C-alpha cells in the first residue's frame, strides 16, 4: 500500500467516522490530530461538551480499559493523556462560555511520603472531562493538607492515591482523622493506586476503590447521584 493511500484526511470524514478516528488518534497519542479533529467538530457546530464527552472521554475510556487489561502501558497512556490535554485546552474556555453540566466536585492528592502522580493526574483529567470540578493537591499530602482543602472547598468527593505499599496505609490515617472529627460522612472517599485493591479500600473505610481513571469517573458519578437522591428524599 502506498503512503498516499495511508493518509487520512480528517476533514473528509463524516462525524461518526471522525469520532472513531479520534478514538484511534487518542489511542496513538497523536496530539496534533486530536486538536485538528476538535476544531473540525467545532466548525461543524458540535457543542464543546459533546466533543469532550463523546470523543475525548470516550476515547480515553478505551485507553483506560486497555491499560487495565495490560494491552497498553504507562508511556502510551501518558501520550494519550497528552493528546487529550491538547483537545481539552481548546474546549475549556468554550465550555466556560457555553456552560456545561456540572457533575460535582473533588479534592484529590497523592498521600504523604509518595511522589507518584501519573495515575492521580489521569483521574483528575478524566474527572474534569466528565464535568467535575477538581482541586488537585499534588503529591506528598499530609492529613492536614487534605483536611484544610476539604474545609476550604467543601467538595463532594475526596480522592487519595498511592503507588507504594509503604505509603498506602496513610489513607487510613486520613480517614480515621475524618472519623475523629465527625466529618467522614460529609464526603465520598475514593481511593486508588497500583498496589491497592477492593479489600484494602473496604478495610480502611473508604467508600470505594477505583482501579483506573475510567472506573473512578463512573464510581464518582454513581456516588454523587446517590448522595443527591438521599438529600432530596
Amino acid at each position, binding site marked *: 500500500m502506498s503512503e498516499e493511500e495511508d493518509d487520512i484526511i480528517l476533514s473528509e470524514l463524516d462525524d461518526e467516522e471522525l469520532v472513531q478516528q479520534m478514538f*484511534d488518534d*487518542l489511542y496513538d497519542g497523536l496530539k496534533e490530530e486530536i486538536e485538528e479533529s476538535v476544531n473540525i467538530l467545532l466548525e461543524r457546530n458540535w457543542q464543546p461538551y459533546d466533543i469532550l464527552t463523546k470523543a475525548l472521554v470516550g476515547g480515553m475510556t478505551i485507553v483506560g480499559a486497555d491499560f487495565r487489561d495490560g494491552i497498553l502501558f504507562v508511556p*502510551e497512556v*501518558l501520550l494519550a493523556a497528552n493528546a487529550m490535554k491538547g483537545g481539552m485546552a481548546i474546549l475549556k474556555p468554550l465550555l466556560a462560555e457555553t456552560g456545561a453540566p456540572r457533575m460535582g466536585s473533588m479534592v484529590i492528592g497523592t498521600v504523604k511520603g509518595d511522589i507518584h502522580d501519573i495515575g492521580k493526574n489521569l483521574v483528575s483529567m478524566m474527572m474534569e472531562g466528565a464535568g467535575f470540578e477538581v482541586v488537585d493537591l499534588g503529591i506528598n499530602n499530609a492529613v492536614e493538607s487534605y483536611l484544610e482543602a476539604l474545609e476550604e472547598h467543601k467538595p463532594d468527593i475526596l480522592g487519595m492515591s498511592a503507588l507504594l*505499599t509503604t505509603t498506602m496505609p496513610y489513607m487510613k490515617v486520613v480517614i480515621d482523622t475524618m472519623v475523629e472529627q465527625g466529618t467522614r460522612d460529609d464526603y465520598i472517599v475514593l481511593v486508588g493506586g497500583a*498496589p*491497592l485493591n477492593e479489600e484494602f479500600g473496604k478495610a480502611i473505610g473508604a467508600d470505594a476503590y477505583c482501579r483506573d481513571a475510567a472506573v473512578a469517573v463512573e464510581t464518582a458519578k454513581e456516588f454523587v447521584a446517590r448522595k443527591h437522591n438521599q438529600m432530596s428524599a
Partner: protein
Amino acid sequence: MARRGRAARLTERAAWRPPTGRSLEEKSLSEHGLAAPERKVGRVLLIACGALAREILAIKEANGMDHLDLTCLPAKLHLYPDQITKSVEAAVLKHRAVYDEIFIGYADCGTGGQLERKCAELGVEMVKGPHCYSFFEGNDAFANRSDAGEITAFYLTDFLVKQFDAFIWRPMGLDKNPELRDMIFGNYTTLVYQSQVEDPGLLAKAKECANRMGLRFEHRHTGYGDLETQLRDWTQD
C-alpha cells in the same frame, strides 16, 4: 484506508510459563528467569526474582549453602506486579512435592500485601520488606531514611544499572518519546545507586543513567544487606 489505534496494535498477553533460562546473563534473567536444576541437588528450594539471581548465588557460595537450589522467575514480572503472586504460587505448587522446604526470594514488590497473604496460605516464608531497595539497604535503615524525608530518590541496584535500557528506559517509552521523561521522573530529585559489588564500570554507568534522567547522583554501597541475613536464617539447621 489503513487503521490506526487499537485495532492496529491489539496483542495477546503471553500466558505464564515456568522459567526456562539457563544463563546468568541479565537479559536472559529478565526475560526467561532461571530454570530449576534438572536434577534436584539440595533439599531446600529458593524461588526468587531473576533480578536477584547473581546476588543469591554469590551469597550461597560465600556461605557454603550447598543444600540450597535456586530457580528464578523472569525479572520482567516487575513490570506487571499483579502477575508476581500468581507466578510465585504456580512455582511453589510445581516444586513443593520435590523439596523439603521452599522459600520465596521476593519482598512485597508492589503486590500490595497479596504476595504475603498468598505465601501465608501456601505455608512458605518470603523476604521481609517492601522491595529490594529496602532489604539491600537494610529494612530498618531504609525505613529511617524514608521517615527522614528521602522520598524523591529513584533507586538502582547492580542488576538495574546493567538492565537500565531494557528495564526502565524502553518500557517507559523514553527511547521513542524523550518528552515523557519529566512526566515520568519529574518528581524525583536524586538517583541513588545501591551497589551490591564494587565495580567501577557499573558506577560509571549508574552516573550516566542519572544524567539521562536529569537527576542528581548518589552512590551507596549496600552489599547484600538483609537478603544475606535472611538466607542465612533460612538455611541454618
